[in-house]
């Protein structure tokens, strides 16, 4: 019998985060009343350490725990991205949480556990570990959405998210159980081999993949499974929204890669059609409904739906090129989403949430630098050239045209033009509308401000030199296909 701990070192980043999350909890229990910041800096230390540990595993390949944990370049790249996004979320949220009495060890620990769940999903090589990672991430998110429990909207959003999330988990599990029934194995590699000679009109396989794709689409937030997204994003405290829009999207993309591109690679004809439908609906609903929003958080939620549509285009292409551009897209999107929601966090003060678009009136006259950063974020979301959002869209469209879906690429470009309207409207309000009566106090958490500056400038810098990140993503998918 093989020693189960042979390659346990592949799990070192995960083990580190688990241990440190428990340490944060205990430290908060004993010293939390007096030293609020201790848990915060410990969490920062935890994620920074995890990044170092993940980087140290770079280039290694193999599996641990009887194939339940896969270590390859994809795992590594996505892990690093998730840890970096977790760090960003922490830096953004300190001031916001403090002002609202939410600066507690549980919130930090739940964020760390959520990150851990995302990492387990990314490295999952087995239906069991994929599902358990998903639940770990989802449970942390349900609790975080409702953590501001004195606000009716937050608890309502938490409950809605919880019920719909449970339903989606059920769908995914049903699909997984059918896959298990078809192939007799839980391992991703073995399922892939068993399916390699399956005929494309095997009805059980079709039903199984429909359920799996529905579950993945729900976790991504693709239309028509996006119903939970606007309410959950708007109701949750903004730092939590920030978290939900970033790391879990990468994890959900990893779920799609593992379940569909690796396990179901021979059934690509089936899930490709499903993703075409998801992409078209998401781009249409996301972009059109976002025009009607007056609340920035809700608008960004619909923008998430539309961006997931563009991400789905990369999955449709299916080739290594397509998946690499999809990985590039989801990483870039996560950076844009953190910057967008980070802006709301930064401009919020005690008793005031800068979440209505009208709250940004005349921003340029009061805070020219912040307004410039807003310009960068919105340009990037709209896909305007010098920013990285442009390259993300171009890469996806290019892969799509290569795979022969020209009409879909044309539709995507049209939808991107529609989307540009509502992003630019925010800029119109911020730059050309007169500021409201009673100027803003010059507040804003300095830590969030620095993070926002770095994050937004990164969108510009990555837009000017996109090549390193692009090659990084391309190499990540090399072993997968």
């Amino acid at each position, binding site marked *: 019998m093989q020693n189960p701990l042979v390659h346990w070192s592949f799990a070192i980043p995960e083990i580190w985060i688990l241990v440190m999350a428990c340490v944060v909890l205990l430290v908060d229990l004993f010293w939390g009343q007096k030293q609020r910041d201790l848990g915060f800096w410990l969490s920062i230390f935890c994620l920074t350490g995890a990044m170092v540990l993940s980087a140290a595993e770079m280039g290694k390949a193999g599996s641990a725990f009887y194939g339940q944990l896969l270590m390859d370049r994809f795992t590594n790249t996505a892990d690093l991205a998730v840890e970096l996004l977790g760090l960003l979320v922490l830096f953004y949220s300190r001031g916001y949480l403090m002002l609202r009495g939410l600066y507690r060890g*549980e919130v930090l620990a739940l964020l760390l556990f959520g990150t851990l769940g995302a990492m387990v999903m990314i490295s999952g090589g087995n239906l069991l*570990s994929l599902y358990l990672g998903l639940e770990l991430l989802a449970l*942390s998110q349900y*609790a975080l959405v409702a953590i501001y429990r004195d606000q009716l909207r937050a608890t309502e959003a938490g409950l809605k998210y919880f019920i719909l999330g449970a339903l989606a988990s059920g769908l995914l599990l049903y699909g997984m159980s059918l896959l298990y029934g078809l192939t007799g194995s839980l391992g991703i590699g073995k399922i892939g081999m068993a399916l390699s000679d399956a005929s494309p009109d095997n009805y059980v396989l079709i039903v199984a993949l429909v359920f799996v794709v529905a579950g993945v689409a729900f976790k991504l937030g693709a239309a028509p499974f996006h119903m939970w997204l606007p309410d959950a994003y708007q109701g949750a405290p903004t730092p939590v929204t920030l978290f939900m829009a970033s790391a879990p999207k990468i994890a959900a993309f990893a779920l799609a890669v593992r379940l569909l591109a690796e396990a179901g690679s021979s059934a690509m004809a089936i899930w490709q059609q499903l993703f075409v439908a998801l992409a078209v609906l998401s781009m249409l609903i996301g972009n059109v409904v976002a025009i009607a929003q007056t609340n920035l958080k809700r608008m960004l939620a619909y923008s998430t739906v539309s961006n997931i549509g563009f991400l789905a285009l990369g999955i449709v292409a299916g080739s290594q090129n397509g998946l690499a551009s999809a990985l590039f897209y989801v990483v870039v999107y996560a950076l844009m989403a953190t910057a967008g929601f980070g802006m709301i966090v930064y401009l919020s003060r005690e008793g005031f949430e800068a979440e209505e678009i009208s709250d940004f009136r005349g921003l340029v006259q009061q805070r020219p630098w912040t307004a410039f950063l807003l310009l960068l974020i919105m340009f990037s979301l709209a896909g305007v050239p010098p920013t990285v959002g442009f390259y993300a869209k171009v890469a996806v469209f290019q892969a799509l045209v290569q795979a022969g879906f020209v009409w879909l690429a044309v539709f995507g470009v049209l939808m991107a033009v529609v989307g540009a309207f509502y992003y630019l409207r925010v800029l119109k309000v911020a730059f050309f509308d007169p500021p409201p009566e009673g100027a803003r106090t010059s507040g804003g958490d300095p830590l969030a401000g620095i993070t926002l500056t770095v994050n937004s400038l990164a969108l510009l810098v990555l837009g000017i030199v996109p090549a390193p990140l692009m090659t990084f993503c391309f190499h990540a998918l090399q072993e997968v296909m």
Partner: protein
Amino acid sequence: MTTVLFYVFSAILLGSAVLVITARNPVYSALYLVLAFFSAAALFLLLGAEFLGLILILVYVGAVMVLFLFVVMMLDINLARLREGFLRYLPLGLAVALVGVLELSAVFWTAPLGRLTAPAGSLSHGTSNTRALGTLLYTHYLYPFEIAATILLVAIIAAIALTLRRRPETRTQAIGEQLAVQVRDRLRMVDLRESGK
């Protein structure tokens, strides 16, 4: 001997199951359900599935039913109102039961009975199935097992973070302060002779 025991436990199981739904007092119903669980556990033990039997007692009798009893005792359930619509819903209930019976008989008719009655492979090769399950769980499935434990931890944290409220106005014992109390905090020595003079 085993056959006799099987019939005895089955009879108790069926009898208590019927009593669960006919008992007038909900507390009795819950207690009959406990008895039903015990008999089912005994049947599992007779089959050689001792792990399943023990878990049934530990989890269902020990935890779930105690919780159930608490709820039943705390809530003032008006049984008369619960039974009001009995006759009205009887036809629907009978129809559902009929469908169930038909489905079961269809299964027994079409499936070869031998496959249903024979045990699914011999379980015992000298090792207990608790041991076999443990060996598998702590070696092959160690990783998912640990993640499941983490999920439970998150569930505990989430439940406490979302529901625990410290209310300063309620009068609760501060046990730490009570234990840390010193003699001089509570007891004042007064010299009575001095004051009496």
